[in-house]
């Protein structure tokens, strides 16, 4: 039988570093060495990493708390603007600007969440679209600050200052490794978070909000916190993206991109797996570049793939893995008996 959503073996849920985390670490650490041999290019790696950060944070809402936010692109964009403005107006220091991106976006998220935290389902989704659109239009009209359609240009890839030494992240490869470090730290922290009492509470809210309230949890506060945190992570991704693109542009805040992140996470299997968003991002960007090389209409084929997947395997790629591959891997290694009853599966 397929594992229930987000359920992992106790050996994994209690660990800081698990096998999938190691696989991630190795694959992405070596990626710049082989990405060009498979016909792709270095900058793609940077994009993939940034979107993984964004998608993992987004899935805290969608996959873990069951809150379908359709306006999340706005927060990604706010992060990019915040990074740029902090750099131009306040202090051109990498750590400061990234912190500003996280804090400012988190603050926007916190205020938005005040209006969303008591909603659920379709009402939550519609409200999140509304807020996303509000931020989009503010950003496009407030030209004094955001430079409107032109965007904030010439955002620098600031050097990483470690006190004793300053490391330039000017080149795509250097920027890649910086994003890689950020992503790995985030993955470890999110893995801990999602398996902590807090993460378990979010999963419970996804399954039955009323019940969670009636065993004594302040549900709204948890939803508010999850939304705020998710926006903070979107801001971090936005800040990195501003450096990658060397600018902050309005299009990223549009409804289309907000929809894209939902699509990516669903295709990857964010509903059932921690790793769903990662798989979704990889598939999306590889499909964009490989299908995109053959046809302008690659998004049509990607969209069709999405439709087929939703019809036949709504749990996404990670769902297939959990349904078909993981049980066989487990079966091969299942010589040790489960150390506690809760681990045996029915």
């Amino acid at each position, binding site marked *: 039988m397929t594992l229930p959503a987000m*359920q992992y073996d106790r050996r994994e849920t*209690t660990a800081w570093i698990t096998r999938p985390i190691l696989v991630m670490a190795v694959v992405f650490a070596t990626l710049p060495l082989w990405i060009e041999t498979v016909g792709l290019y270095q900058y793609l790696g940077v994009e993939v990493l940034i979107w993984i950060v964004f998608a993992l944070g987004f899935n805290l809402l969608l996959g873990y708390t069951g809150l379908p936010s359709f306006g999340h692109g706005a927060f990604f964009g706010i992060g990019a603007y915040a990074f740029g403005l902090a750099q131009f107006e306040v202090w051109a220091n990498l750590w400061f600007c990234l912190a500003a991106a996280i804090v400012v976006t988190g603050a926007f998220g916190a205020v938005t969440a005040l209006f969303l935290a008591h909603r659920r389902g379709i009402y939550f989704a519609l409200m999140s679209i509304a807020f996303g659109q509000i931020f989009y239009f503010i950003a496009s009209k407030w030209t004094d600050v955001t430079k409107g359609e032109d965007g904030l240009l010439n955002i620098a890839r600031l050097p990483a200052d470690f006190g004793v030494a300053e490391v330039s992240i000017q080149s795509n490869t250097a920027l890649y490794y910086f994003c890689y470090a950020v992503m790995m730290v985030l993955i470890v922290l999110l893995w801990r978070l999602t398996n902590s*009492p807090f993460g378990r509470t979010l999963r419970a809210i996804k399954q*039955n909000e009323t*019940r969670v309230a009636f*065993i004594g949890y302040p549900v709204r506060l948890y939803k508010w916190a999850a939304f705020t945190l998710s926006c903070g992570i979107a801001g971090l991704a936005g800040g990195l993206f501003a450096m990658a693109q060397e600018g902050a542009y309005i299009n990223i805040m549009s409804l289309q991109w907000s929809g894209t992140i939902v699509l990516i996470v669903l295709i990857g299997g964010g509903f059932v797996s921690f790793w769903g968003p990662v798989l979704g991002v990889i598939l999306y960007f590889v499909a964009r570049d490989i299908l995109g090389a053959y046809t302008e209409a690659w998004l049509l084929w990607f969209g069709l793939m999405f439709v087929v997947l939703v019809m036949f395997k709504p749990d996404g790629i990670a769902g297939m893995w959990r349904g078909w591959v993981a049980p066989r891997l487990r079966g091969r290694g299942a010589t040790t008996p489960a150390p506690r*009853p*809760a681990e045996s599966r029915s």
Partner: protein
Amino acid sequence: MALFEATHLHKRFGDQVVLEDISLAFEEGQVSGIMGPNGAGKTTCFNVLTGRYKPDRGRVTFDGEDITGVAPHRIVAKGISRSFQIMTLFDEFTALDNVVMALPSTRRRGFDGLHALDGDSAAQDRAAEIMGRVGLKGREGVNAKSLSYGERRALEIGVALATEPRLLFVDEPTAGLGTEATARLTDLMRELKRYTTIVVIEHDMRFLFALADKISVIHWGQVIAQGTPDELRANRWVRRSNIGELANA
């Protein structure tokens, strides 16, 4: 003074009056029953008493403290818990984790985002003990959705118990259970009575008459009769209604 008192509760939805001047009192250490035909307002009454709905008028006190309109999670923290008629388990969790989730010790560290909940063996031991109490020993690792109907009913009560309530509300616990399972549930409730005060909504008369110390009959949104099972059997109103026939059966 009773542990829990509700006085002059009114509740309406739109122009439909569901509760009209309901007053109830539940004594500590007793099993109190609420019965009445379908649509009499029993479940609404429960929802008002446990904070799911706010009454339009009236007052609810617990241990002398006014808890009218207080949010459900705060009411739970004060020591009132409830089970649901429509089962509300966490289907993606194991049976044990359903109970772990409801423990006050888990709730207190609800904003701990760093340490593994699976590493909390004290909570697991405590949850396993509660599962034993509701007759689910050995089923800890089974996913909630794979449990049988009767087991899910028992787990529902286990989850409510895990919050360590002084007062436990149970909504139609026998719904859908066969005679054998109902008999087991009766034993379980008698056992639970030793630790906690219980209020049961039920329309299985035999179950309620066998269990409750005091019963309130609700009909048309009002309390039409109140008393011990014996008093109710003798009550003119109850005898005249079909409820009375069932009670004497």
